[in-house]
């Protein structure tokens, strides 16, 4: 079945019927609608918590080659399938590593995913560690505002502002963040019921939306200025919803395999939805927060060679990513190493962070590979997108925010992948300023403290 010029509302907001989830994503996607003459620019943010071990992450500056891959990045030479995740060929030509980005001074707390895409220091004396400016992804989305301005998708089940929201519209205002991939998929791509009855229901819902917009206008006549602003927000959200419902999905009927079972399943589902939404021109900016700082663990995965270590654990066991990131000595640590001789424990703990870091890189590689394999009328998503890997900390053990793990992929705005850039401790603001300039911002400085855009991005 081909859906063309078919408003989503006709497929209904509220279909209870399940979605057929069978065809592999990439086979199913064949965008029909030609992009604009000028190549669309897109941004895909990817957050994975707890940093890495920078010493085992950062490769030597220069061209990124199979030989120069660091222990944490070694899987960019290709990796096998595991669980829900497919295998991937070598991708080091497709990813640029930025060493030494400094994310210090921005946030109050030790783990603050809400600040990961921020370059503005938190407001002084604010009660909570909430941003004062739009996050990088939203800033780009705001410039290229379309029917779906952006998709903020978070697998975090934590609704605390610091842990459950990575995308921010502005001061103290988290972006509309999706947490249920199945519901989101249904909303964006739900199976069409093109029957007169279903169409009538959809038509009526559209009329109700019109009616309540008029309710807003009438309500506002009774209100003071500040209250009117809140009703305006409601009104604008109704309009955004209508735009979403009327936007044309330029895709064949699509299906996705996905569940919301755990952080991994949800995040893969979200990545797939983000890719699909871009391919179908429903959005050009998407961000996936893989987990909050404490949530994700590796139960069900075998990281490493599958051989038991001296503590009797295979890979990283069922310990949370946060525990593994803390290696030894922290209260939050994998305590199975406590009884081992110090040197042995250190070796295993270091290796475990390499194992989890490799996993994190493989997940970003999956995203990059999907961008690469998704064709558009003007090429493929990879050529039109900048994808950014980020975290809330640089060194997961010490919480240091120097040497943030930073990967950039895609060729949007002429970006050149396959390199290792040494930022020499440049601030996140310098990185973000440079990325924004790839999206035609023409900034000379950005962020707080303000920094000049990082050269070479």
């Amino acid at each position, binding site marked *: 079945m081909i859906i063309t010029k078919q408003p989503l509302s006709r497929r209904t907001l*509220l279909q209870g019927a399940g979605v057929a989830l069978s065809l592999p994503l990439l086979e199913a996607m064949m965008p029909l609608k030609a992009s604009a003459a000028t190549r669309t620019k897109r941004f895909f943010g990817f957050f994975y918590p707890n940093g890495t071990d920078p010493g085992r992450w950062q490769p030597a500056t220069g061209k990124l080659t199979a030989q120069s891959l660091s222990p944490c990045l070694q899987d960019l030479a290709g990796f096998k399938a595991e669980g829900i995740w497919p295998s991937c060929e070598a991708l080091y030509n497709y990813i640029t590593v930025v060493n030494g980005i400094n994310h210090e001074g921005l946030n109050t707390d030790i783990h603050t995913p809400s600040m990961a895409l921020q370059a503005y220091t938190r407001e002084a004396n604010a009660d909570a560690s909430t941003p004062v400016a739009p996050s990088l992804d939203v800033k780009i989305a705001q410039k290229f505002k379309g029917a779906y301005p952006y998709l903020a998708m978070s697998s975090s089940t934590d*609704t*605390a502002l610091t842990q459950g929201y990575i995308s921010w519209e502005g001061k103290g205002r988290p972006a509309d963040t999706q947490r249920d991939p199945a519901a989101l998929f249904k909303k964006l791509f739900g199976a069409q019921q093109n029957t007169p009855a279903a169409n009538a229901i959809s038509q009526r819902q559209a009329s109700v939306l019109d009616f309540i917009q008029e309710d807003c206008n009438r309500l506002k006549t009774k209100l003071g*200025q500040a209250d009117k602003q809140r009703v305006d927000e409601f009104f604008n959200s109704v309009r955004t919803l209508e735009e979403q419902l009327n936007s044309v999905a330029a895709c064949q009927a699509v299906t996705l395999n996905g569940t919301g079972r755990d952080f991994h399943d949800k995040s893969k589902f979200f990545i797939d939805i983000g890719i699909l939404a871009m391919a179908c021109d429903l959005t050009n900016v998407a961000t996936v927060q893989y987990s909050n700082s404490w949530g994700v663990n590796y139960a069900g995965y075998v990281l490493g060679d599958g051989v038991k270590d001296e503590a009797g654990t295979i890979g990283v066991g069922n310990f949370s990513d946060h525990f593994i990131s803390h290696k030894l000595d922290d209260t939050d640590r994998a305590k199975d190493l406590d009884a081992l001789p110090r040197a042995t424990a250190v070796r295993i703990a270091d290796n475990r962070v390499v194992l989890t870091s490799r996993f994190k890189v493989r997940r970003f590689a999956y995203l990059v590979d999907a961008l690469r394999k998704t064709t558009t009328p003007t090429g493929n998503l990879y050529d039109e997108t900048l994808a950014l890997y980020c975290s809330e900390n640089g060194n997961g053990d010490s919480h240091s925010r120097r040497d943030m793990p930073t990967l950039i992929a895609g060729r949007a705005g002429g970006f050149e992948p396959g390199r290792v850039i040494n930022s020499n401790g440049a601030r996140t603001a310098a990185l973000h300023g440079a990325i924004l300039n790839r999206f035609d911002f023409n900034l000379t400085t950005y962020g707080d403290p303000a920094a000049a855009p990082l050269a070479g991005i």
Partner: protein
Amino acid sequence: MIKNLLPVFIACLLLTACSGENPGASSSSSSSNSSSNSSSSTSASSSSNSSSSSSSSSGQVAGNFQLGKTQFQDKCALCHGESGEGNTQLNAPKLIGCSVCDNATALSKYIAQNMPPVGATAPKACAGDCAANVSRYIQEAFNARTAACDDSLSPSPSTFKRLSRIEYSNSIKDLLQLPQAPNVSAIPNDPSVYNFQTIANVQSVQASHISGYMAVATEQAEALMNAADRRDKIIGCEYSRTGCLESFIPRFGRLAYRRPLEAAEVERLRSFVTGQSNALRDQFVLAFQVFLTSPNFIFRVEVGNNPAGISKLNDYELASRLAFALWGQGPTGDLLDKAASGALANVEGLRKVAGDMLKDPRAKDNMTHFFEQWLATNLINAPVEKPQNWYNTIIADMQAETNTLLSEYVWQNKNFLNVLTENTTYVSASLADYYGLPRPSVAGQAVTVPSSDPRAHTGILGHAANLFAKSDGDLLAKRGNWLRSTFLCKELHLPNGIADIINGKFAGFTALEIITERNRDPSCERCHSQIDPIGLVFAPFDRSGRFDASIRMADYPIQPGLPDRPGSSVANIQDLARELAQMPEIGQCLADRLFLYTRNHVPEQGDHCAVNKASDNFRTSGNQFTALLLALVEDASFRNRVAPLPQSNEPEPEPTVVNLAQNRPVTASSAQEGNPGSRLTDNNLNVDSRWSAQTYPQQVTIDLGLVRSLVQIEAYPYEDRAYKYTVEVSRDGLSFTRLVDRSKNTQAGASLTDLFAPTEARYVRLIVTGASGYTGDWISFREIKVLGSAP
């Protein structure tokens, strides 16, 4: 009472300088002030009520409270603490109940003449208006309590609130008479602040909210139309009968919009639904869709007699506010009728109505939500590795244990503070096994904890729902912080950048060594000494809330305790529970939290009367929870609403931190011709814009013009050389303090960055003593940036 303690922590960072350099400098002033302090802030301040309020309200000191607050935080909080709690190590007296605190004139004069004391760190003068403002702030914020309440004082502004997801669910359940709460998962969950999901100003309305409302409304409307019995009750007539729609719209609309509909509204909706469909059933579905997605339903409209500024709520709005406060949902038809008949017009009437409302099961449900958010028992997640005796429904049983006990105390009007020492509990048989407690003889019946059990006489403190680690993190610090924040409303916040400043400080330390160090190092001890002793009390209970006899408090390098209760003796969780239950601050904190929950914002200055009255009511009632709750809704401020000021268009945030050195004059110990010191501050990073000098050591001094607050220094060496240097700062250009020590630096690069705690200085001196890797004797930098607060 959620307060930002940032300046306090800066004080803790500067402790060495503050108390070390001039140990006796401020002691003379402090001894005269602190001698009359009582150990209990509550009792001390109560006694000073009348005098403080009369002096401020009669205008003896014409200070401005808001300005005073700002000035206090800027100039005084560093040493005296954000809440005026004082700091003995800094010789900074407590400002609660102090000898001059109840006399505004004397206090103002004292501040003007004596503050800041000689030798204080980062002293900032405060005379004239500042002294008057600050003294008013100290009086009213720290020393004014019930008697200072003036019912004409306006409450603080409240954001135009939308229904939270829970309120939406509760309201729909009631409106449609559903046997249980509807599925509202299509609506995004509400962001939480301090784990409360009722904070209006973070609740935005986004497209996914609208589509969620529409989804729930449509599903519920269809379900209702298919359930004949319920349908006829809700609609009030057989829907196909002539005139049914016309009678339904105003009747149901009044419940949904929590006010009578205007005739024009009724007609507009009627004509809309009949215009959309000829099918009667569809017309009703449409009407329900409108009612349950309209801004008139989603927003709690409170305009009273004045849409801007302060207004007195009308009867319906008051009924509505009461219903949301006590029930977490909109009012019933009965309550609207009562309001319309004037039943809420005076405080006696409202008290009676509210008392009746508390007997309703809706009140119990609403307070259970409060308890779960207050104690954060709603955050428990199953661990990956299941402990022994774990079972599928254990989390619900843990939550039920705490909720049941609290409910018993609330609704049987027991002394609520005894929930901390209660020795009976409500466990299922399986949860009893998990704990190792005797099973209840009859399901649902209370179990008495044996006196030998580690949980004996610890009430809710010993409940797994509270002991359970709700997130990763240092359990010692987390539990100590949780207890202080939950029961005493004492919040600790890490100052901006502190995590970066302590970066790597504890590398290679064992967990116990870290605990030792953070309770010794002045920059950490100030906070950790307040929370770690409390956390230690809980240490024998593991992450999953089970008692672990192998964890011994004696193995830790610190002592257990409750530092917030001076003179207390705490060796175990029983002692902690007993001491805590005697702290009157709990009532104050509970009032604070309940205000936040029922009024949807953090209590601010204009709200403290209401909060204080409620906590007084709590105390005089023998610590009855419902007395506290009723006092909050009976307060005069409950009848008023202040609309907030409109938000201005949000410009790009101005940098709050800038390069203060830019274009400032530089003095160099020497300079190569053509490469003068001034090149360091010309904002030009090019190699041909640099300062150069030959032979070590050399130094440059940048004059920032005025004393500024500095947070970071960036040095840009020529040719990325790894120079060894130190940075010193000074307020007067004479006495310098070392801020950055890179005297053993080996790091090369385009720039080297050092962050530090905010430091006040005017002069910044860079002293270069050598280099790594570079063997020449030239010293050359392209730029020095001194980042600090924008002027």
